[in-house]
């Protein structure tokens, strides 16, 4: 219970801090992403500001992200180990909307079609980066890509 209250306190801080952890490049044009999930028309990718995860590889933040993944009901759609439920698996290192940090950030911050809510307003940028850090820490299931039932 105490941990619950503590987590909520920290989430509140995250949430209150969203003004200074500004949404992506609010003042400098549209966000640039690597757009690995997209094709570029011609040879020139759109300009913009590259987003980088301020917590990249930080295991303490990843653990906090695991708690947030449950507290913000992400698990209700994506499964407790993010291995997929009504929403897609987030643990197979495969991504509908691109797997660059900035693309995963945008999916959570702004939401996606088919029912992924926009969490940016509730979590703020740092909260979203905390979730990205957690997702990056997950092990990939051994059955990706081949699942076998060979009897021999």
């Amino acid at each position, binding site marked *: 219970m105490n*941990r619950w209250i503590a987590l909520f306190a920290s989430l509140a801080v995250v949430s209150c801090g969203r003004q200074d952890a500004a949404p992506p490049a609010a003042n400098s044009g549209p966000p640039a992403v690597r757009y690995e999930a997209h094709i570029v028309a011609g040879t020139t990718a759109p300009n913009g500001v590259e987003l980088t995860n301020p917590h990249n590889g930080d295991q303490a933040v990843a653990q906090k992200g*695991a708690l947030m993944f449950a507290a*913000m*009901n992400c*698990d*209700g759609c994506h*499964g*407790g180990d993010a291995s997929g439920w009504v929403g897609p698996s987030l643990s197979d290192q495969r991504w509908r909307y691109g797997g660059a940090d900035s693309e995963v950030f945008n999916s959570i911050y702004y939401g996606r079609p088919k029912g992924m809510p926009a969490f940016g307003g509730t979590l703020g940028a740092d909260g979203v980066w905390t979730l990205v850090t957690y997702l990056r820490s997950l092990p990939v299931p051994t*059955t990706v890509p081949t699942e076998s039932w060979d009897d021999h």
Partner: protein
Amino acid sequence: MLLFSRAALLACLGAGTLLGGLSQAAGRSGPAAADGEWTMPAKDFASTRFSALSDITPQKAPSLHPVWTFSTGVLGGHEGQPLVVGGVMYVVTPWPNVLYAFDLSKEGYPLKWKYRPDVSPNAIGVSCCDTVNRGAFYADGKVFYNLLDGHTVAIDAASGKELWNTLIADVANGETVSMAPLVVKDRVLVGASGGEFGIYGWLKGLDVKTGKVVWTARNIGPDADMLIRPDTFKPAYDAGVDAGAKSWADDTWRTGGAPVWGGVSYDPELDLIYYGTGNPSPYNPEQRVGDNKWTASVLARKPADGALVWAYQFTPHDNWDYDATGSMVLADLAIGGKSIKALVHFDKNGFAYTLDRATGKLISAEAFAHVTWAKSVDLATGRPVLDPDKQTGLSKGNVKGVCPSLEGGVSPSSPPAFSPRTHLFYTSTNNLCMDYAAARSTHLKGTPFIGANSPYMAGPGGNLGAFIAWDATTGKKVWENKEEFPSWSGALVTAGDVVFYGTLDGWFKSADAKTGKVLSKFKVGSGVVGNPMTYRGPDGRQYVAVYAGIGGDWALLAGDVRSDDPADTRPQADFIKNIARHTSQGGMIWIFGL
């Protein structure tokens, strides 16, 4: 890691005329000449799924073979069933809820028309458990059905043109619509799913001609919201004034769930509709102390104005996600030398209940599946006798060995059938148990409100499912066909004394209604989670139709049956390792004949 909740969601179903034999009480769905048709989800207002057609007998059934198939072009779980009226077959797909009308009088059954509604994809993520639709209802030259994103539509059966389209539910607040409507007199009755999103559950009565919402009845909350009036509300077990609010800690009823995603039944003589309500939200019961009336209950209302006449709660203070949205079958049964106007219900909680459908008084409740959460049901009080060791909640930690699992002793998605000839009920069952670790959950609009981690394991015997025949007058199983996988299809029984069902790994079977002996089986294109139905074709022959298309909960629980998205590859589930070896997604209509 108390906070680490893993959603093991659940489950999300269908509705009836007794012909001959036992009773006319529920009324016929049409003139005798129409017996070869199937106009409503569960065949008749009584929800019997019994057809008087008798060409297919136990002697002839072994020669059943597929005569036609059609891909719906949709991959979601194909629950529900086709309708056949006037030589036309009507089929509703899962999201995006296309309605097809096939001309059965022409070779190859070409389409007369198809209706393609604009259904919001946002509803996909707000559906607890796949994008299922449990079917349409035909009345007065119109086809009525619900769209996943919270609309009810009326379509002209001849032309396929939309006549009206009414917004009934709010996707942004966790409401989606998967149930099949029931049309009684001048009302279209509809309800919303969302027991995993903390909705304030309801049933609505729409005007059949205009689609206008005439009344809205909440399933929980204060008497005024529930359309409870002292002069009309006479429950057999009195719960007091405003029980739908007072049986909840604080005002937790406001986000207390009680969805409607099963079928609605109707008794024209009593002029009562019957439907079940789903689980209370969230799954962690310590966030909603009290009985949580009227979740996990059956409610009897007047169709014209929605007034509640009686209610009975199967699982007070549901700790286990035991929705009561399964079919309410109306049958007149000989019990103790008397003919009883009964309502029979196979509940997720593992008990088969027989109630007096005029009063809501409990007559019997016997386990049809392996049950550990309760020892029995006290007939005097109507309440279960609980096993204290199987009560769940955040403070209880990980409670082991709860049976049935929250998939239910039977899923409400798998409606039973009743034959007035054999006097038996036929139903799919699941043989799964679970551990249940509740977790604190936050209500955050538009996101799941659950709070439980509940891994499954096989129940006694190791088979994960079975198809059974059940005698409701004695509370005993008459025969059982064990299945390797959970049994998730609906049941169909005919006057030929043949029963039909499908399996999760894709076998469509016919069996002798008296003995259970399997008479025919054919491996259809995908696992069967739909409900077989039968009709007489324009050529005068009896046919049986069923959807293939594994999904519903199994799109989540066995995510490795999905191959549609390279960015979404799921590991196999440890309690059902082999299912993806035998089947994968894909919606198809199959028609069988002799």
